[in-house]
C-alpha cells in the first residue's frame, strides 16, 4: 500500500503493452526461387538432328 511504488509499478505496466512494430519479428516466408535448368541430354536430342559429334554417340550406343 505504497502509493508511490504502486504508481511506479502501474506506470511500468502500462508501458509494457508493446507496439506491433516492436513485436513483429519481420519473418515473412518467401516462396522458393526458380532456376532455369539445362541438361547434357539436351545434347542427345540434338544428335537426332545430325549433330557433328557423331563419333561420341556411336561409342555410347555400344555401351
Amino acid at each position, binding site marked *: 500500500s505504497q502509493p*508511490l511504488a504502486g504508481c511506479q509499478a502501474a506506470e511500468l*505496466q502500462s508501458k509494457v503493452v508493446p507496439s506491433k512494430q*516492436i513485436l513483429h519479428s519481420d*519473418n*515473412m516466408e*518467401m516462396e522458393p526461387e526458380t532456376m532455369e*535448368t539445362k541438361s547434357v541430354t539436351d545434347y542427345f536430342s540434338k544428335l537426332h538432328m545430325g549433330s557433328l559429334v557423331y563419333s561420341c554417340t556411336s561409342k555410347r550406343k555400344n555401351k
Partner: protein
Amino acid sequence: RMEASCLELALEGERLCKAGDCRAGVSFFEAAVQVGTEDLKTLSAIYSQLGNAYFYLHEYAKALEYHHHDLTLARTIGDLLGEAKASGNLGNTLKVLGNFEEAIVCCQRHLDISRELNDKVGEARALYNLGNVYHSKGKNVASAGTHDPGELPDDVKNALQKAANYYEENLTIVTELGDRAAQGRAFGNLGNTHYLLGNFRSAVLAHEQRLLIAKEFGDRSAERRAYSNLGNAYIFLGEFETASEYYKRTLQLARQLKDRAVEAQACYSLGNTYTLLQDYEKAIDYHLKHLVIAQELNDKIGEGRACWSLGNAYTALGNHDQAMHFAERHLEISREVGDRSGELTARLNLSDLQMVLGLSYSTNNSMMSESHVVDNNLNGTRPRVGRRHSMENMELMKLTPEKVQNWN
C-alpha cells in the same frame, strides 16, 4: 574417348543433383569440366548445372561465375534459348548478392528473349524472377529504416509496386497455362508484397489462395508458410485472435515437420500475439517454449529476444522478481552478441525495475527513497525523457538479414 567420359561424368553429376546431393554432383561436374569437351552445348549445360548446384549450396560467388560462363558460351554459339536461361539464372544469383540493378537487366533479358521466342513458360518464369528482384530490392531499402509495413519511402513503394505488377502478370500467364504450382509461388510472394505495401486485406486474399494450392499438392511446408504469413497479416489488421489461430496451425505443422527453428519462430509469434491480447500467462508460456528451443539451437539473438519478451510479460503481471531475472539475462546476452541498442534497452528496463522494487521494499514513502536505488551497477546516464523511448529502442533490435538467415 574423352568425349564419352566427360559426358558420363556430367550425367553422374546430374543424377546426384537430382537425388539432392549437390555437393557430390559438383565434384562430378567439375571433373567433367577438367576432362573437357569439344561440344559447347554440353559444356554450357555443365556450367549451368554447376551454377545451380552452387546456388543451392549458397555459394553465390561460384554460382555467379558459372552462370556467367554459361551466358558467354550461349552467346558464342548463338543459342538464344540457352542465353535466356543463363540470363535468368544470373539474374537470380545477382539478386541474392544484392546487386539489384544488374539483376534487373539480366531478368529483363530473360523476359525479352522468351517473348521473342514466343515461349510462354519462359516468359512467366522471367516475370516471377523480376517480381522477386523488385521485392528484394524494396525490402532491402526498407530494412535500412524502421517502420511498420505500409509506412514506406517512395523508392521502396515503387519497387514493391513493380514487384506486385510482375507477380500479377505472371499469374495471368500461369493461370492460362494451368500451372498450379507456379500460381502457388506467385500468390505467396504477391501476398508478402502486399503485406509490405500495407495492403493487408489483399495480402490475406493472396495467402488464402496460396494455402488452397498448398493443400491441393499436399505440400505441408508451403501450407505452413501460408499460415505464418496469414498470421502476420492479421496482426496488422488488428485481428489478434485470428492471427493466433493461424500461428497455432503454423506451430502444429512445424512440429509435424520436425523443424525446430520454425517451431521456435511460431512460439515467438504466439507469445507476441498473446501479449497483444494482454493474456500474459499464455504469452509467457510461449516465450518460454521459444527460449528453450533458442538455447537448444544456440541462437543467441533469439534467446535475447525471448528474455526481453519474458521480462516485459512478467512486468505486466507485476512479477518484478522474474522480470528482473530476465532483464538481467537480456543485458548479459546483449553484451555477449554486441547488441548495443539491446543493451541500452536492458539497462533502462533494469533501472526501472530497480526503481519499482526499491520503492516497494522501501519503508520510506518520500521521494528521497529513490536515492537508495540509484543505478549502482548501471553507469549509463538516463535521459529524463529516455524512459518513454525505451520501448522504441527495441526497433533497433530487429534482426538483420544475416541474422535472419541463421534464424531460418
